[in-house]
């Protein structure tokens, strides 16, 4: 090996330090240059085919075109671009077609069939998760746990309007209007205090017995008239979307989050005083039936049906 290195090697002719420092000439192979020329040719072909150069306020569009369908069913042919390609892939791409076929299976199956088929459920959970993130997570959170006081928790087992799969479908398709009268003008502060103590007594210990007793009279009597919506047993009515006041779940008053009894009562009092008015929009006009069905089963799988 050392013998080879001692052989005469061609130099570039450059010499430094009195000729003691010279530069070997190790020329590039020719094909290397050809490769470079090939990339230049590729670039020019690319400029001709695809959008490339900015020109004034526009750009060279290239001669390649792409065809896709707009949302209202019109076929558009335009110069090749990534957005159009995405549109096209979403409509006629292999995966899109496969997804549509699967979705077809979901729409043509009954809820009963979907819930009993692990494959269909797996698909619902995958695609439903995306639809939920796009349309529902804005209010209900990406996991469906909602925001107390504003947007119901979909993961627990309290369903104001019913947790049956049909109820959930109705809620998504037609929306819901949750309403409770404000009692600020009807009841005095003391009376509101008493009613709140009574309401709390369903689900927890503590509270002044006399106050609870007075509250009971207001709650069950004509003065408050609370039973009209919440029912004689205070367990709420599905048809009205009125809350069950006897369980551990509070969707509006943040009772679990309050530190002590007084704070819990204050949270309830605030609701009684100000009432509730909240709305879930109807989605039937915005989403197609397949997506609504998908979201129904997905939501049901989160915590419904219990």
């Amino acid at each position, binding site marked *: 090996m050392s013998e080879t290195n001692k052989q005469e090697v061609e130099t*570039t002719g450059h010499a430094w330090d009195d000729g003691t420092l010279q530069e070997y000439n190790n*020329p*590039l192979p020719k094909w290397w240059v050809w490769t470079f020329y090939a990339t230049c040719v590729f670039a020019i072909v690319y400029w001709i085919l695809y959008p490339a150069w900015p020109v004034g306020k526009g750009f060279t569009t290239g001669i390649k075109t792409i065809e896709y369908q707009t949302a209202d069913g019109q076929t558009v042919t335009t110069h090749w671009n990534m957005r159009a390609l995405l549109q096209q892939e979403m409509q006629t791409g292999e995966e899109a077609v496969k997804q549509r076929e699967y979705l077809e299976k979901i729409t043509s199956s009954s809820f009963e069939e979907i819930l009993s088929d692990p*494959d269909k459920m797996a698909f619902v959970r995958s695609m439903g998760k995306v639809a939920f993130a796009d349309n529902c997570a804005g209010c209900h959170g990406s996991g469906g746990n909602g925001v107390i006081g504003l947007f119901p928790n979909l993961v627990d087992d309290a369903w104001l309007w019913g947790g049956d799969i049909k109820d959930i479908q109705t809620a998504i398709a037609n929306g819901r209007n949750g309403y409770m009268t404000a009692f600020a003008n009807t009841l005095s502060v003391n009376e509101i205090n008493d009613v709140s103590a009574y309401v709390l007594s369903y689900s927890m210990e503590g509270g002044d017995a006399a106050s609870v007793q007075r509250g009971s009279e207001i709650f069950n009597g004509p003065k408050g008239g609370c039973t009209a919506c919440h029912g004689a047993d205070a367990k709420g009515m599905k048809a009205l979307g009125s809350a069950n006041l006897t369980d*551990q*779940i509070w969707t509006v008053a943040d009772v679990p989050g309050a530190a002590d009894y007084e704070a819990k009562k204050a949270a309830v009092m605030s609701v009684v005083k100000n009432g509730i008015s909240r709305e879930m929009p109807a989605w039937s006009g915005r989403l197609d039936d397949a997506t609504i069905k998908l979201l129904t089963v997905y939501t049901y799988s989160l*915590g419904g049906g*219990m």
Partner: protein
Amino acid sequence: MSGSEHLYQDRTPIFPRTVKGRFRSIKWGILALAYGVYFLLPWVRWERPVGPDQAVIFDLEGRLFYIFNMTVHPQDIFWLAGFLMLAALLLFFVTGVAGRVFCGYFCFQTLWTDVYIWIEKLVQGERPARIRLSKQPWNVEKLRKLGLTHLLWLFVAFLTGFSFVMYWGNAPELAMQFFTGNAPFPAYFTTLFLTTTTYVMAGLAREQVCIYMCPYSRFQTVMFDQDSLIISYDKQRGEGEQGRHKIAKDYKTLEERQSKGAGDCIDCGYCFQVCPTGVDIRNGLQIGCIQCGLCIDACDTIMDSMGWERGLVRYSSEKELAGGKTRFLKWKSIGYGIAISIVAGLTIWSMLNQAPMDMHVLKMRQPLYVTLSSGEIQNSYEVKVNNKTNREVRVRLEAKGLDGATVDFGRFEEVTIKPEKNIRIMARLKMKPAPGMPKQQNVTFRAIPLGHDDLSPVEFGAQFFLP
């Protein structure tokens, strides 16, 4: 610019002469084996209870690789790591012991170049004829011979690309689709791509790949040591005192030559002519030498015909050339050997003990837990059970290890998993929290196969959170 000739170097065309001998035979043998496997394997049929009836098929769409009786699932991807490690270690090991064995005998660049040179020779004749042809002006003969050569090259290149594609689908069906224009686009693209690369690399670029493109040829030097086998010219014997000398008057027999101080090399140039990378081995170890052994065959042929001892060009080592003795049992090689045994052992063990089923449980983290109307706390999980067998397996799911908890798998407490498929099931676990309970507890999910004595239950641990 006057210096432009200096900047780029034209390829010096190489016209290797054919040679017969030990190493050529070994190389033809390896080539026949490699080509036999590569080109025929996709067409071998194989009976399976489920799945395609092709012995080796890489089913990307179904995410399963079928290799004879083995089905490789995506979960087994670490076998690939094992194989890559093994390949690298084997390369290091063999290079340390015996030099560029891979380059000379196994590299596909060498194999395909061999075939291309063979075609070249078949059409255009032996080395002198080819040199003459390349120098003569364009005429019908040159056009015909070169054209036919390139056509045959393209045909081999196409077969190469086409055969590669056949591994990724049902070969007879895919071939039918391919030639009727109904195959998927990637099939055509891959074929075209590999046809082009094979034609360019084996037909046009050849030794330039080894010298300029291949990273391995560059970093192999660090794996060499004084004891590594290299192909070398015995300078002492070949050159003698006065250098090599052609056979001439008074330079015929060994005695005559030795008395005149000439070496045993008769300067016939056969070793240089047969070299596929254009190396003159008599100049010592060079980057272009892929150690294919053809120059040994060439020199041995000449020595045999002279009636002299073989081995003027031979496998040797730097140490042996310096008068020492090659040591094969080196600590480095022993170390690589041990590493190879460990990796090979573990990979094979893992392949033999491929779990027929596995399970994975993902805790849903948003929300971490939820309070139910009864005051119980509920956690949700996604349970995945993978059936790698080729049978339908019915399993019962359960959750263990959390006292007082109840589990709900929806309607899938007992569920059937199709062969080589998996299921994903939502599970909910709820329990009444007691004072003083830790906020985080362990729970084990289990899938118990029903009616399959040979399958044991699989389990996966998860956590249960309390507020």
